[in-house]
């Protein structure tokens, strides 16, 4: 996996401290390193930090003490860490330090398709982008070397299709354990090796930072990570980076234009190596730029071409601004091949028309739409059932502000479309804190927010403090499923173990909320009637209230494939369509473990799918869904 290759690359660079916060598609980098740390054969410290800013701070401390270190996050986490990154890149580092940020073009597992690349430009630090699995490893190792040379943070950007794809990688050596940690701080204040580490005096440090970037630029000119394949004087030059280099290779191969089109694959994308680029730009007048989401490369190449317009002459660009590729969504070989065929005025490749037409007709009836839903036995289905029915019973048009986790899916019918806002980590509670102050403008709707247990620690505490301090009226529902479930059960400060499996100090969510001054209740979401009554009571009162709905994720390692109950539908009690409940179980509650037996006009349990949580037995008005303790 691309992420395993990055982890391996860090090990081959002798990394000693790694910190990050889980987020698809970056999580497996730290998971793999945590496994190594757990084995204990190497001196390696790995932690899942409380959030990305703290991760960057923790990792940088190791650098200040002279150790090779790495921080890892998904792109939205880079936004969280950005404030510190601005100051860190200004102060510079000592031990080599790499920051890995993973983008998710097309938002395959995100609610955004944010860009890492612009941060390199904004923060004035070098950017490396691996184009395949081997490079994911090799470039990570080299990123540490580069950081060691320029004494500043190096940013390595990956994307979902690289991080979560797997390919063949040739491994290198892992060095012996290195030196001990020591923070030299009592030298002359401007001494980069022995003085204090800080970003002021700003003009002096900023000049230093830009000098470092120039060194990187010079090194990039000869970098083996920038490669060209194609004829000496191509008709068309593709300039690309990251996973798009494989899509470009595929598109050229599909169209059979290897002798006409050259591919310049750039691995060092900020700052761009000007000489290297100018050499290629002078070989060809038609330039096709292939990249995902925003036109980062395109803009930079155009600027360079304009700056050298006198010697280069006029160039024809085929990019996003010319409409050849979209500025949203992820790329794939088809989109690149379609654009390439348009540029070369060739027939568009693709599926055989007759086959495509027939397959589409068949799929209309043959592959019914499959909407994402909570897993069978997921506590979130029960929790949102409670929230949704409580809001209906309350009847004041209340609403829930959403947050980031599996439970974000409650914007969909899977969660009864309960969430009405959805933005960044922790934002649900911040937005609720604001809504809760609108009573003075006549707003009387009950305001709720949700967040998961990991999100609570990540960024819901400051808005909760804000809400309590300002006497906002709101109820925070913490959906505590005992782990960072969506990304694979990484530990967080609410649990008793850390990333390396060591005993950790457990911080109790209800106690934290009580200490802050909130009214707190804890319920088991599988007890639907109690949870709902408690929530209704809380919603009726002013101030900040917290309801913790605590039940482990159905996929958690301790619960997986263990059925608490054996479920069945008593066919004599279920009245089917004639019940008057409008098939509450299969039409509204809609757990995939409950299916509709059309022939018998009854509900039925799908034993292969059912997780045995028992919740559905409490929703059937006829009491037809039976639960029996499983043996």
């Amino acid at each position, binding site marked *: 996996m691309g992420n395993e290759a990055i982890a391996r690359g860090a090990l081959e660079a002798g990394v000693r401290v790694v910190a990050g916060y889980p987020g698809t598609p970056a999580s497996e980098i730290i998971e793999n390193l945590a496994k190594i740390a757990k084995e204990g054969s190497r001196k390696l410290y790995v932690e899942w930090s409380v959030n990305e800013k703290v991760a960057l701070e923790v990792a940088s401390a190791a650098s200040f003490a002279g150790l090779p270190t790495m921080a890892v996050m998904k792109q939205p986490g880079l936004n969280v860490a950005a404030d510190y990154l601005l100051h860190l890149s200004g102060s510079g580092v000592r031990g080599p330090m790499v920051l890995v940020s993973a983008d998710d073009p097309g938002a395959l597992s995100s609610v955004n398709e944010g860009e890492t690349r612009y941060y390199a430009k904004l923060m004035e630090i070098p950017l490396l982008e691996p184009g395949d699995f081997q490079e994911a490893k090799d470039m990570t190792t080299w990123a540490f070397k580069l950081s060691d040379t320029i004494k500043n943070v190096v940013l390595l950007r990956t994307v979902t299709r690289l991080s979560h794809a*797997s390919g063949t990688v040739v491994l290198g050596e892992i060095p012996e354990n290195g030196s001990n940690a020591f923070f030299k701080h009592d030298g002359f204040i401007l001494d980069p090796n022995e003085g204090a580490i800080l970003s002021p005096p700003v003009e002096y440090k900023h000049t230093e930072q830009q000098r470092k970037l120039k060194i990187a630029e010079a090194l990039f000119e000869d970098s083996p990570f920038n490669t060209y394949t194609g004829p000496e004087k191509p008709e068309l030059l593709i300039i690309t980076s990251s996973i798009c280099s494989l899509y470009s290779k595929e598109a050229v191969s599909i169209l059979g234009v290897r002798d006409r089109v050259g591919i310049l694959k750039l691995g060092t994308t900020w700052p761009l190596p000007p000489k290297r680029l100018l050499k290629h730009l002078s070989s060809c007048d038609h330039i096709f730029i292939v990249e995902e989401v925003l036109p980062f490369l395109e803009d930079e190449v155009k600027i360079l071409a304009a700056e050298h317009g006198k010697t280069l002459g006029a160039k024809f660009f085929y990019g996003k601004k010319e409409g050849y590729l979209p500025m949203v969504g992820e790329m794939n070989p*088809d989109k690149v091949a379609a654009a390439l065929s348009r540029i070369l005025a060739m027939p568009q490749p*693709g*599926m055989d028309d007759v086959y*495509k037409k027939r397959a589409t007709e068949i799929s209309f009836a043959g592959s*019914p739409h499959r*909407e994402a839903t909570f897993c069978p036995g997921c506590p979130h289905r029960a929790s949102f059932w409670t929230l949704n029915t409580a809001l209906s019973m309350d009847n004041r048009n209340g609403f829930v502000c959403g947050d980031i986790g599996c439970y974000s899916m409650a914007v969909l019918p899977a969660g009864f479309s309960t969430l009405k806002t959805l933005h960044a980590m922790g934002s649900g509670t911040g937005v609720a804190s604001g809504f809760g102050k609108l009573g003075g403008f006549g707003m009387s709707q009950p305001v709720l927010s949700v967040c998961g247990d990991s999100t609570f620690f990540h960024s819901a505490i400051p808005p909760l403090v804000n809400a309590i301090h300002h006497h906002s009226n709101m109820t925070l529902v913490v959906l505590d499923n005992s782990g960072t479930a969506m990304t694979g059960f990484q530990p967080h400060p609410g649990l008793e173990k850390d990333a390396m499996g060591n005993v950790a100090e457990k911080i109790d969510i209800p106690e934290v909320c009580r200490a802050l001054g909130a009214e707190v209740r804890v319920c088991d979401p599988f007890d639907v009637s109690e949870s709902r009554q408690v929530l209704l009571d809380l919603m009726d009162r002013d101030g900040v209230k917290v309801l913790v709905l605590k039940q482990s994720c159905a996929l958690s390692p301790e619960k997986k494939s263990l059925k608490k109950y054996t479920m069945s539908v008593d066919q004599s009690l279920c009245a089917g369509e004639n019940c008057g409940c409008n*098939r509450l179980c299969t039409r509204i509650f809609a757990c995939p473990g409950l*299916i509709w037996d059309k022939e018998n006009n009854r509900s039925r349990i799908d034993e292969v799918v059912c997780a045995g949580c028992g919740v559905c037995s409490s929703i059937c008005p006829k009491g037809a869904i039976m639960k029996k303790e499983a043996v």
Partner: protein
Amino acid sequence: MPELTLKHDPYNLIITGVGGQGNVMTSRAVGNMLSLLGFHVTIGETFGASQRGGSVMSHVRISKDSSWSPQIPSGHAHMVVSMEPSETIRVLKDFGNRDVKVITNTRPFYPVGVISGQISYPSDDDIRTWISELTSKAWFLNATEKAVAIGDPILGNVIMAGALAGTGELPLDREVFHTIMASRFSGDILQKNLDAYAFGVESVLSRKI
């Protein structure tokens, strides 16, 4: 060992199903087997929150000499191994062609829209007719039923991997599978995996499906 050859280079294999059925495990197992034989294997996967209960696909590209895009171009699949019958059709719509071959589990995993009655699920007969029409060769087997009989529905994946080996489309052999499984499992679990694989191979070889 005779020189191993591929019918196509890259050979494009799609493994599909529904989130939670264990696609990732199957693609990794098949990828590892081929990688051990010296092939360049590139696997593109979709997983994460948006895949909970949704359609999932792994694209496996097998080549003698290089890495390929983790996404197969449309219409370019050579073989589709599917854990869920309606997902087979979904994949054929985008990646199928007249020469494509398919092995499909016949046990449906109903979408919530089907359970609620908003949309309907095709009959087993229709599915078989349609898949046969869209492929040059199709194998149908109830892998889930057999997996439950062996002891765990998740073994359906292993049955499908065995069935793929049984078709002879790729140089997958039992010895390599055994080596890989023995590195991860032992005892009863290992035996169940081997039984499931053997059943898959046999299902195809016996031409009963």
